[in-house]
C-alpha cells in the first residue's frame, strides 16, 4: 500500500469515532444555535463539522474510487476488513467454499429483493358514489419496473378517490439501507461459512 493510501486509511479509521461523536452531539443538542453563543460549542462545530466531516467525506470518496480501480489496494483493504486468510492450501479451499456459498446466498437475496421491489399490491374500499352495486372493494396487484427512481416515487401519488386500506409499491427501504445491508450480509455470510467449514 502506498504511503498516501495508508495515511488516508488511518484518517478514516481514527476520525470515525470523532465523527460519530459529532453527529450524536449535532442530533442531541441544537449545536448549530449553541455554536453562535458558546465558544467551545463553536470550536467543536468548526472542528467536527468542517475539518473532520469534510476530510472524512473526501477520504471515503477517494477510498471507494481506489477500491474500484486498484486490484492491489482492494485486496489489501478488503481482505483485512473481512479477515480473509489464505496462509496455506486448506485455507484457500475454505475461502473458496465460503465465497461460493456467500455468492449464492447473496444472489438469492438479490433475486428476492428484486421481486419484492417490483411487486405492487393494493387493497382499497371504493366510495359508495362511484361503486358498482355489489362491488365495494378493489384488489389490484402487478409488477412494476422503472429504470430510474422517479417513476417509483410517483407510483404512490396517484390521485384516485379510492380509500386504500393496504398499499404496497415496492420495498419500503432506501437504496442506502439496502446496499449497507448487503455489504453487512456479505461480510457476515463469509465469516459464518468460514467458521462452519473450519
Amino acid at each position, binding site marked *: 500500500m502506498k504511503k498516501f493510501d495508508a495515511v488516508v486509511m488511518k484518517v478514516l479509521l481514527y476520525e470515525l469515532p470523532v465523527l460519530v461523536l459529532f453527529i450524536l452531539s449535532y442530533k442531541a443538542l441544537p449545536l448549530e444555535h449553541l455554536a453562535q453563543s458558546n465558544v467551545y460549542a463553536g470550536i467543536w462545530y468548526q472542528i467536527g463539522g468542517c475539518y473532520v466531516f469534510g476530510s472524512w467525506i473526501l477520504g471515503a470518496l477517494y477510498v471507494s474510487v481506489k477500491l474500484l480501480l486498484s486490484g492491489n489496494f482492494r485486496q489489501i483493504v478488503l481482505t483485512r476488513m473481512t479477515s480473509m486468510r489464505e*496462509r*496455506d492450501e*486448506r485455507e484457500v479451499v475454505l475461502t473458496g467454499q465460503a465465497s461460493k456459498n456467500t455468492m449464492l446466498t447473496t444472489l438469492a437475496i438479490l433475486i428476492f429483493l428484486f421481486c419484492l421491489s417490483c411487486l405492487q399490491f393494493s387493497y382499497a374500499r371504493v366510495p359508495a358514489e362511484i361503486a358498482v352495486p355489489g362491488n365495494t372493494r378493489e384488489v389490484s396487484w402487478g409488477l412494476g419496473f422503472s429504470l430510474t427512481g422517479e417513476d417509483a416515487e410517483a407510483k404512490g401519488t396517484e390521485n384516485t378517490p379510492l380509500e386504500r386500506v393496504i398499499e404496497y409499491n415496492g420495498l419500503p427501504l432506501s437504496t442506502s439501507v439496502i446496499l449497507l445491508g448487503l455489504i453487512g450480509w456479505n461480510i457476515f455470510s463469509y465469516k459464518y461459512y468460514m467458521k462452519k467449514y473450519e
Partner: protein
Amino acid sequence: MGKLEQQLKMTNRLNVLRAEQRLTQEQLAKAIGVTRATIVAIEGGGYNPSLELAFRLARFFKKDISTIFFIEEEDTNEKI
C-alpha cells in the same frame, strides 16, 4: 463418480508418525509450511491434503506416500 466417492474413504497415519518422532502439531506444521489447524484437520480426517502437500509430508517423514495416506475400503456389499 458419486458411487466411487461413497466407497472410498481416505485415511492416514499422520498422528502415529508424528508421535513416533515426538513432534507437536505446531512443530510439524512449521516444518511443512502450513498452519496447525491444517494438521489438525488432516489428522482428524476433515481435510484431504493436495498431492503436493502429501508428498511434502512423505518426504518429511522419509516414508512412501502410500504408507501415510491410504484408502480405507468400506464394505459396500449391502449397498450394491
